[in-house]
């Protein structure tokens, strides 16, 4: 039996190396200098209090490359007395293509101008597509979207809902064209509007059923 000697195939794109590259050690040293340099540069940034990584903490930080027009979270606007502007007309829930808004309407005899109000207003962020049609549909400017994203990552879909309290106690970071929620009567930025408020309205913010302590409902980035 004759055996053909093994001939190693020569590839058309076989690398051509200089003796310097063939010696291997110098190229390895060059590689180590590159990676070590990146390490030292990033460590220097960390040590001097800057951020030495491209990673963005989610959900604590907003990505720097989010578009200026990005809107990631709904808010409900308030009347001067702290109650929601929403009149529970259900138009947003009707127009919503993902059917994520659930509203229960209720009757408030104390507020004759707006007797209908939402006793429950919930948005399911696991299904929301952030199309903004609810804002378009709203006749009362009661729902808006802001630039933040809700801090809702969770292993459970049932934990990805925002309810009325969370939607109305928003802490504006960028979208502050209208001074909502108003401060108390003394430090109010809109004294006239406060004066026009309904006689039955509750001015005292602490007495509002939707008010929460300032620290509790905070959704901004964690320190």
């Amino acid at each position, binding site marked *: 039996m004759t055996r053909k000697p093994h001939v190693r195939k020569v590839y058309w794109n076989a690398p051509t190396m200089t003796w310097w590259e063939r010696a291997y050690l110098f190229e*390895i040293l060059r590689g180590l200098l590159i*990676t070590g340099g*990146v390490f030292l540069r*990033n460590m220097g940034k960390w040590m001097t209090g800057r951020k030495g990584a*491209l990673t963005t*903490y989610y959900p604590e930080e907003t990505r720097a490359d989010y578009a200026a027009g990005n809107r990631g979270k709904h808010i409900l606007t308030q009347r001067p007395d702290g109650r929601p502007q929403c009149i529970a007309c259900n138009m947003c829930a009707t127009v919503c293509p993902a059917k994520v808004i659930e509203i229960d309407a209720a009757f408030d005899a104390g507020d004759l101008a707006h007797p209908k109000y939402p006793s429950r207003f919930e948005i399911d962020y696991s299904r929301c597509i952030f199309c903004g049609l609810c804002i378009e549909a709203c006749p009362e400017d009661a729902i808006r979207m802001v630039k933040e994203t809700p801090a809702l990552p969770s292993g459970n879909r049932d934990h990805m809902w925002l309810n009325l309290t969370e939607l109305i106690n928003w802490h504006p970071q960028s979208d502050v064209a209208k001074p909502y929620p108003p401060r108390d009567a003394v430090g109010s930025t809109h004294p006239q509007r406060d004066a026009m408020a309904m006689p039955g309205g509750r001015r005292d913010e602490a007495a509002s059923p939707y008010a929460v302590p300032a620290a509790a409902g905070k959704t901004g980035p964690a320190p």
Partner: protein
Amino acid sequence: MIQDLVVHFVYIGYALGVLLTFGTVLTWVERKQAAVMSDRIGANRAYVRIPFTQIKLVWWGLFHGIADGLKMLLKEDWRPRTYDRYAYAVAPWVVFTPVLLVFAVIPFGGTLDPGNLLQAMPAAAAWFDGHTYPMQIARLDAGLLIVFAFGGISIIGAMLAGWSSSNKFSMLGASRAGSQMISYELVMGLTVLGLILIYGTLDLNVMVQRQSGILLGFLPAWGVFYQPFAAILFMTAAIAENKRIPFDLPEAESELIAGYYTEYSAMKMGLFMFAEFIEIAIVSALFTTLFLGGYNLPFMADAGFTFPGNHVVPMAHGLVVVTQLLVFLGKVLLMSSFQILIRWSLPRFRYDQVLVFAWKFMLPLAVANLSVTAVAVWALTP
């Protein structure tokens, strides 16, 4: 007699503490350093909550080591249906134990004089009766041989693990581990022979003391300046011995799942990983001792500094001991960090390239280095 026992128990406790701490801390260093090298942040979500408060200690992700350890301990200890259950059970220990034992001959400090340290307590000082102890668990004149003897045992562990798992991937990994480790052990031994010729001893402590002199009038007399080639070859061979990238053929994930410990789970697998991380520290300690002046700063000896130009700066004994312990740990940490830098920079070799690299490239270089050293020592020795 009792005094010797006390001192050596303290040494053993210190060595075990240092090694196990390095084993856990290096897992964190590896993660974090890899992350910083590649513009990431790294593991930082494990935390310890102080009981009854909402204070969560994150500490740059240091607690991920504890989380890993707990996971390893609490996982199911799954066993394959293998024909050799005893070899399977004993293999992790055969890998792990020699790694710890190697540290017995590595000096982690100079000479300790308890009588001098305990001057504030005359009774305790008198009890030691002026005895001095080198800071080394076992002072053996065959120190370097012991290192290689124990290093050879862990090959048996890897082979046993692969053989007794009755898994093809394990078997392939074990055969790769065997051929690779035996090849590189040869290279490692040949590189160190040059140092033995220069220092004329196998005793690691004496080697360190010989390195506290001055070379050519301005350099510290470190091994790395006597034998730069040997230092590079030794480091390469040591990484190959430790089976880490770029020489991680025995456990190449993309080819062999986990190589020779594919069939191991829970803490048995943890022992393999732990042995690998402790071995990083051991290799660094060995490299420090042989090439980087051991536990001494440049120009430093047990009595103090002797700078070029014969400037003598004497130091108190307590200060010397503390400095030497800290310098040793610092050098070991730096070298471990360097090994991790290599591990995250280089791609893996092909299997045939590993062996060709050992036998056709490194072995001739090591032999050449040894011959040149031998001739130089013969010519320069009066």
